């Protein structure tokens, strides 16, 4: 019995190709079953995320199985044979190593991301429940999960946030803990503000206020985020109650000055206040950061923190690969 993997991902195929092969989560078990039939194999697992679709199989003859799947898949989803150029094919130990890299987040678009671990686990669970797996794939996936855990605990591949939005959210959590008791104000309804605010909402921020020069745009964004729109002239009044301010207006000069923040300190009872300034030119006068309870981070600082985290992760790749090779060498996986 030979182990094989056929797949496409964000590096080998554009989204218009990836979406043709995508399988929704509830259908993963059924898809694994169909895969086994298509490839005339004995075992199969289908992994499908927004960045990849991969088929893991255990078959008597890997080369024959590759040919069968590619032809029959193309027929089934009505694509021409040119699509096969987007696929990568791996066999035996190489396929096992690839799965370990995927599970560890080393093959992800965002290096070291953790979500993939759960997604692969879900895909394997669906195939297992559908009865599409056997000795070869059961051992392979269980070992891969063990290796993935080891990589994450023994290296810092998942440490630090690698995007400006996530760095801002992590800092907010370092200041306020759980964000469920935190209120957020957005100054300027730009795209970066929206993304950062969405990250805060996804981590539980209680309410969002949107202040924008165009009130219609503020209302539009507030509705989208489930928050409230505020007239731009009223932002100082709202400052009394919020914990986080995300500013990204197109103003050519600072719009938040030290005096305006000083005025509301008493009403806020000197509670901590986190300013995220992602505008260029900056919206918040750097003197605001000199106020005792204010933490001010501008786009350069956030970008620098994200870049440092990305560099730290890149430096960890070699160590992760070493752990994977070492662990795989210890195991005698069937099919490899």
């Amino acid at each position, binding site marked *: 019995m030979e182990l094989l993997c056929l797949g496409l991902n964000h590096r080998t195929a554009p989204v218009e190709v990836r979406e043709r092969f995508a399988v929704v989560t509830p259908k993963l078990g059924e898809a694994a079953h169909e895969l086994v039939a298509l490839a005339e194999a004995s075992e199969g697992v289908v992994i499908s995320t927004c960045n990849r679709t991969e088929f893991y199989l255990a078959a008597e003859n890997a080369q024959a199985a590759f040919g069968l799947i590619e032809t029959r898949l193309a027929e089934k989803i009505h694509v021409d044979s040119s699509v096969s150029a987007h696929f990568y094919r791996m066999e035996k130990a190489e396929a096992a190593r690839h799965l370990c890299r995927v599970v560890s987040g080393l093959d992800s678009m965002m290096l070291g991301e953790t979500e993939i671990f759960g997604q692969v686990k879900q895909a394997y669970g669906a195939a297992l429940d559908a009865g599409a797996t056997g000795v070869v794939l059961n051992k392979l996936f269980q070992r891969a999960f063990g290796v993935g855990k080891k990589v994450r605990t023994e290296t*810092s591949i998942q*440490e630090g946030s690698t995007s400006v939005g996530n760095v801002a959210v992590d*800092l907010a*959590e*370092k*200041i*306020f*803990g759980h964000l469920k008791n935190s209120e957020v104000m957005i100054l300027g309804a730009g795209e970066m503000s929206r993304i950062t605010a969405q990250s805060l909402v996804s981590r539980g921020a209680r309410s969002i206020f949107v202040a924008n020069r165009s009130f219609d745009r503020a209302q539009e964004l507030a509705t989208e985020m489930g928050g409230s729109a505020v007239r731009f002239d009223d932002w100082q009044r709202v400052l009394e109650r919020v914990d986080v301010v995300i500013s990204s207006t197109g103003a050519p000069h600072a719009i938040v000055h030290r005096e305006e923040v000083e005025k509301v300190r*008493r009403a*806020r*009872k*000197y*509670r*901590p206040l986190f300013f995220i300034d992602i505008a260029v030119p900056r919206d918040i006068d750097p003197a605001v*950061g000199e106020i*005792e*309870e204010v*933490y001010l*981070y501008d786009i350069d*600082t956030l970008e620098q*923190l994200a870049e*440092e985290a990305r560099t730290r992760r890149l430096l960890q790749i070699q160590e992760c690969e070493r752990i994977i090779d070492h662990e795989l060498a210890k195991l005698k996986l069937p099919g490899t």
Partner: protein
Amino acid sequence: MGMDRWFLLAATLLAAVGAMFGMISVHKGHRSRLTVFWMVAAFTCQLGFLSVRGQMRAACPLVGIGEILAFLAWSLTLFYLLVGPAYRISLLGVFTAPVVVVFQVFALVPGKLAENPQRVIGGNPWHETHSAMSVLAYGALALAAVAGVMFLVLDRQLKEHHLKSGLFRNLPPVRELLISLERLLWLGGVLLTIGIIAGFLMPRTTGANGHLIAAVAVWVSYVFLIGLKTVRGLTGRRLSLSAVALFILSLVVFAFV
């Protein structure tokens, strides 16, 4: 060396080991999960010390600076064990353990603990309540000062954008530290109030009046700080600095009065 000293020495060594391992873990960027166990072991030995010493005194062992410091270290450990793990305030143990070690090392300095403690004869319950509640209060207030130091460290790192250290990663959030600090101040304040009331009710010698006046001054300072925070509000930095300064000041005052 008597059994009481052995217990106190063991408690000191256990707390020191907890502090050392905790600091090494933090330096490596990991959360120290074992500190709490070292502190539980230290707490058990502290109980042993207080028990042996209590039997010798036939009263609460709070006679002389050595016993007071040992009792204070026990009280600090007690509040850490009650607050730290329950509210998941990481690193509180790592910051508390060295303070416990310092108090106990001072208590172990030759001459600070009476070799053959005399039995307390004709003890008064108000006197014992005053001593026990006051020292318990200082345990809570010492832990508030520890939380204050943790806040000051975190605040500085956040302000200066120094976010790479293991210490930064493992310190609890600003808001949680400030909430814990405020609760500990309230707890210490309530216990200190009971101690002060008991102090007024106990029979006093003329020499004890200075001590009581100092105690009332400390109590007024803490009540003012708590009142200011509750009514007007205070920045985290000022609250923390005040908690640390007041605690050190009150220790200095009682060392001389």
